[in-house]
Every structure is written in structure tokens, then in C-alpha cells.
């Protein structure tokens, strides 16, 4: 964006404005754009979710307001904003007021490192991935504030559940991404995407693979397992069914949102859906290549970019549109999977959730990191790191061996951990039953 604004003002008009003004203008433009996009995504996702879940339940869904019900979210928003804003008498007023802001702000900040298309990233941080998850963990503070300030037991319970869940599932999410970071050796999201060019084999792994933008990490065993773990963790982070324990409306009214109404409730809602969108988008970016897809790389090679200053801006436009299309298609597909899971599965119990996260997902990601190390050792390392036996192998052979070994490791680990987990859960139930038999016998008689 800086380049475009700079070219427009200083080259085309020849005004020779200083660099920081142009930086300010371009950043303001990007921010405005993103702040316009985020609520729109939320509006669209609510509509999308309601329509999709309705179809899964053999219904039609909202179809009254506007063509095919498309204006329904706007009507909902109008309803929400015209509602009275109620603050409980016993509430901690300032904390109660600040909590929604603290929840919304991080989700908006997370947009800062999300690349929408080739060359279309607001900020290319070299610790972008870490930034993404560090920022997302802030919203847990907002949830706690909401729960504590409401002076409501349901809000408190919901906040505790939400925060425990978010803190627990951050670990498998970050660890699963760590495997991918090991594969590429970078934390920058832009470079992560660029490493996914190729055709089912990343051209970073095997040179000479045709670039169709399909060298996604999902096609490697490490990436597949990491994706599965990450997606489950993302469900928990975004408080989606089957992990919607914090706002389980059949148990604790609406969780931490219980004492909120009107606009503040709307902000929580906004944060939640924007977070879901971002989690889907980051899953698409890291495991499914983001804007990578057939044609984008070819178009972007002919466009204006730092590497190719005398390109044609038409190709910028085309590559941008195609890239954004690919990214949004993948994101919405993931959101559909989220809705699909919501239609399919019931809610977990809190202890089941915690056991699953700590006793199954985290060991699985640790094993996955080991297989990522194997992958890197077989593909990248040579004699200077002490790996001598792969010296004479062709790249494709190295790739094949690495694929087979990591696949075997991951499958064996998955089955073994699942068995152990299932057995331990059964054992746990049995022990509980034995221990409580005496007291319960007395109760039942």
C-alpha cells in the first residue's frame, strides 16, 4: 500500500510529500479498509452460519429480510443497537464497560498481519505468526473482566470456562504451528505463504516442481496432523460447538455475556465472529496456502512488486482479485466445516474438554514436532549438520523417504495416543465410580 500511495502522490502527481506522510496515509487507508471489512465479515458469517445450519437441519433459515434473507444480519444489528444498554447495579462499572472493548480490540489487531493476497498484507512482521497468537490471547483478559465485573455467577462461571479453555487450547494451537514453522524456518506469515508454491510438493522442498500454487503444507503428513490439531484447537479458541462450553446456554445462561445487552453485547458477538473468521483464515493461510492457487503466482510475476518494479498494474489487480478470492473461498470453506461440526456434534463437558486438550492434543503435537524435525533433517540437512547418508539422494527421493517416515510416525503416534487416551478415560470413570460407591450407595438408599 505504501508503494501504491507513494507512486500515486510522488510519481504521478509529483507533489514530493515526505515519507512519513505517505506512510500515515497508507496505514490510515489500510486500517479504514480493515475496520470496514471486519464488521462486514461478522455480518456475513452470521447469515452464512444460520443458512448453513438450517440446511443441515432440513430447514431454510432466514429468508424474509431482503433477497434470500441477505439483509437479516443488518436487521439484527439494528435491533441490537437500539436496545437499552443495561448495567447491573452490582456491577463494577468501569470494568464492565471496558471488557467488550478489550475483547474486540485484539481481534481487530489480528487483521494487521493477515495477508489477503500477493503483496497485500498490512504489516509483514517477522514474528507475524507469534504476534497473531499473542494478540489473540489478550481477549481472554477481556472475557475475565466481563465475568468478574458482572457480579453474576453465570458470567463468572462462563468467564472461567472460557479462559481455562482458551489458555489450554492455545498450547496445542501454537505447538501445531510450531511444526510448520520448523518446516519453513520462518515466523513471517508472508514467507510461510510463499513457501507453499508448487504442485502437491512444495517447491521449497524439491526444486523444479511446477508452480501451480498448490504446494500446501496440508499435503505433508506433518502439515496434515498439525492442521487437524490446529483446527480442533481453533474450534476451542473460537468457542465453537462442540467446545462452546463458555456460553453453553442450557447450563449457564450466556456465559460471560449474560449481563450485557445492546451494543456491548453486539461487540462481544462481533469479536466472536471476527475471531472465527480470523482463525479460519489463518488455518487457510498456514495449511492451505492462503492466496496461493493456480494462476496467482503467474499473474504476480508480471505485476508491480519490489522484485519486479516495472510490471503492469493490471496484473496487480488481477493477482489481487484472484488471491483474495482463493483466500476467502478457503476461509468460508473452513467456516462451513465449523458449522458442519456444530450441526453434527453435541457439547463436551468441561473435564472432557480439558482431558482432551492436555492428554491427547498436546502429546500429539509434541510427536508432530518430532516428525517435523525428521522431515527437516531428511530434506534440508546435509553433511555439515552431520546427516551424511542422504548425501547422494535425489531431492525427490529425499522427499519420498521423509514423507513415508513422517507419515508412519504420525499414524502410529495417533493410534497409540488415541488408544491410551481412551483407556485412560475409561479407567478414570471406573476409579471415580469405585470411589464414590459408598457415598452414593447411601444416597440411593
Amino acid at each position, binding site marked *: 500500500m505504501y508503494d501504491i500511495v507513494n507512486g500515486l502522490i510522488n510519481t504521478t502527481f509529483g507533489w514530493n510529500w515526505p515519507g*512519513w506522510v505517505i506512510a500515515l496515509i497508507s496505514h490510515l487507508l489500510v486500517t479504514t479498509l480493515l475496520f470496514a471489512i471486519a464488521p462486514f465479515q461478522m455480518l456475513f458469517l452470521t447469515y452464512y452460519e444460520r443458512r448453513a445450519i438450517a440446511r443441515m437441519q432440513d430447514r431454510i433459515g432466514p429468508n424474509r429480510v431482503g433477497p434470500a434473507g441477505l439483509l437479516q444480519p443488518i436487521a439484527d444489528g439494528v435491533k441490537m443497537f437500539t436496545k437499552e444498554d443495561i448495567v447491573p447495579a452490582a456491577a*463494577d462499572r468501569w*470494568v464492565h464497560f471496558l471488557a467488550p472493548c478489550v475483547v474486540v480490540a485484539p481481534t481487530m489487531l489480528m487483521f494487521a498481519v493477515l495477508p489477503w493476497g500477493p503483496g497485500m498484507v498490512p504489516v509483514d*512482521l*517477522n*514474528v507475524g505468526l*507469534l*504476534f497473531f*497468537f*499473542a*494478540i489473540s*490471547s*489478550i481477549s*481472554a*483478559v477481556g472475557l*475475565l*473482566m466481563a465475568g*468478574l465485573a458482572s457480579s453474576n455467577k453465570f458470567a*463468572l462461571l462462563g468467564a*472461567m470456562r472460557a*479462559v*481455562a479453555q482458551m*489458555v489450554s487450547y*492455545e498450547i496445542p494451537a501454537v505447538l501445531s504451528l510450531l511444526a510448520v514453522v520448523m518446516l519453513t524456518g520462518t*515466523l513471517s506469515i508472508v514467507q510461510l505463504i510463499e513457501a507453499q508454491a508448487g504442485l502437491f510438493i512444495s517447491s521449497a522442498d524439491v526444486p523444479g516442481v511446477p508452480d501451480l500454487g498448490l504446494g500446501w503444507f496440508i499435503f505433508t503428513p506433518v502439515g496434515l496432523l498439525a492442521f487437524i490439531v490446529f483446527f480442533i484447537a481453533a474450534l476451542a479458541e473460537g468457542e465453537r460447538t462442540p467446545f462452546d462450553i463458555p456460553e453453553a446456554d442450557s447450563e449457564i445462561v450466556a456465559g460471560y455475556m449474560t449481563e450485557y445487552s445492546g451494543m456491548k453485547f453486539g461487540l462481544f458477538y462481533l469479536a466472536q465472529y471476527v475471531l472465527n473468521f480470523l482463525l479460519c483464515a489463518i488455518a487457510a493461510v498456514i495449511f492451505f496456502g492462503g492466496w496461493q492457487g493456480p494462476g496467482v503466482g503467474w499473474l504476480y510475476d508480471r505485476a508491480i512488486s519490489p522484485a519486479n518494479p516495472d510490471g503492469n498494474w493490471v496484473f496487480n489487480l488481477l493477482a489481487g482479485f484472484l488471491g483474495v478470492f482463493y483466500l476467502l473461498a478457503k476461509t468460508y470453506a473452513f467456516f462451513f466445516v465449523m458449522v458442519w461440526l456444530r450441526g453434527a456434534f453435541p457439547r463436551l463437558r468441561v473435564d472432557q474438554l480439558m482431558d482432551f486438550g492436555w492428554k491427547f492434543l498436546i502429546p500429539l503435537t509434541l510427536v508432530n514436532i518430532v516428525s517435523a524435525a525428521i522431515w527437516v533433517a531428511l530434506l534440508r540437512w546435509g553433511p555439515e549438520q552431520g546427516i551424511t547418508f542422504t548425501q547422494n539422494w535425489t531431492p525427490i527421493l529425499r522427499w519420498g523417504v521423509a514423507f513415508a517416515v513422517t507419515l508412519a510416525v504420525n499414524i502410529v503416534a495417533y493410534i497409540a495416543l488415541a488408544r491410551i487416551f481412551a483407556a485412560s478415560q475409561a479407567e478414570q*470413570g471406573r476409579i*471415580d*465410580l469405585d*470411589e*464414590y*460407591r459408598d457415598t*452414593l*450407595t447411601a444416597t*440411593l438408599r
Partner: protein
Amino acid sequence: MATVIQIIFGLIAALIVGAAVMVVTVRNVIHAALWLIACFFGVGALYLLLEAEFLAVVQVLVYVGAISILILFAIMLTRQVTGEGVRQLVGGWRLWLTAAISALLFAVAIVPTVISHSWNVPAPPAPPGTPEPLAGVAELGRAFVYEFLLQFQVAGVLLTVALIGAIVIAFEERARRRRVLTLAEEHELRKRLAHPPPVEAPAGEPAPAPRATPISEGEVQQ
């Protein structure tokens, strides 16, 4: 540009010090924890200003995302002390003594030392504006696995031990916990009650000792 940075630094410093003062003075512990989070944010911003991006992100991830959450959790679990009426600071001469110690430490020890010492700051690169060579994330990672490998592993062991220790300390006896059985479990239990398994324990075994009851509040008052 220098003025802008100075203004930003001033704001961040004010945020850090002001939030820290609020942390130690407000009555409500929850508010104190929230001010602590603000203070952590200020420190993270200061890291960004010092061009330690990775550390800033880690600050947010660890302090804001984990430690402050932990503190808030602990406050929630020990909730009866968060009331406004409870005196939060030690009283009388002890308060004044601590305040005096802190102030003296700052005014007599720290500030004169920092000001008077001549720091061996290296000269900035020759043409002003060229980026300084800064150690980045890659160097950090390399330092951990080459130069500071032992320390790194010790830190890992420390974290593991702390994790285990925290669990051991905070672990609640299973027998003290209350748990509601699910329908399936209750059904299973009823089945077992209807058909009890053969008793293997010898008849002469002494009855288990009664469970230790937690000390009630009345006893604490005495």
C-alpha cells in the same frame, strides 16, 4: 522524528509507572490485576520501542496472555478477599517504613547511580538513517541452541518442575472433590449394587480413617 519518539517514550513511561502505582495502591485486587495488565502492556510497548519485537510479542503472550490470567484466576478462586472494605495494605508504621525504603532506594541508590555512571554507549552508524545491524529472531534461536544450550535446557527443566510442582501443590485430594455422576455412570453403579462383585478384602482390615476436614473459618478466626 526524535521528538515523536520522545513523546511516545514519555507516554509509555507514564503508563508503566502510573499503572504500577495503581497496582500497589488500589483496594480492589481485581482492579490491581487489571492495572498490572496495563503495566505489562506498557512494558511490551517499551520493548517495541527498543526494537525487540520478539520479546515484545513474548511479553504479551506470556505476561498478558498467561501470567495475568493466572493471577486473575487465583483471585477468582480466592474470591472472598476482593471486597472493597477489606484493608489491602499493611497498616501504620510498617506501611510508612516500606514506602520510605522504596523511595530511598529509588532516590538515593538507583537514580544517582544511573545518572552518574558513564555508560559505554557505542557510537551510532556513520551516516544517520542507515539501519543499525540488530540481532533478530534467528540469532536468538541460534543463541539458544549453541551458546546458551545448557541454560536453555535448565530453563526447560525449571518450567517442567514448576508445572509439576504447581500441580502437586494445588492438587485437590480426589476424595474431597464432589462430582455428579452421569446417568450412564449411575446406571452402571446401580447395576453393580444389584450384583456386587465378590469381596476380596479380608474381614479384619481396619476401617479407613475419616477424611480430613478442612479447617473451618471459625477456627481461623481464633
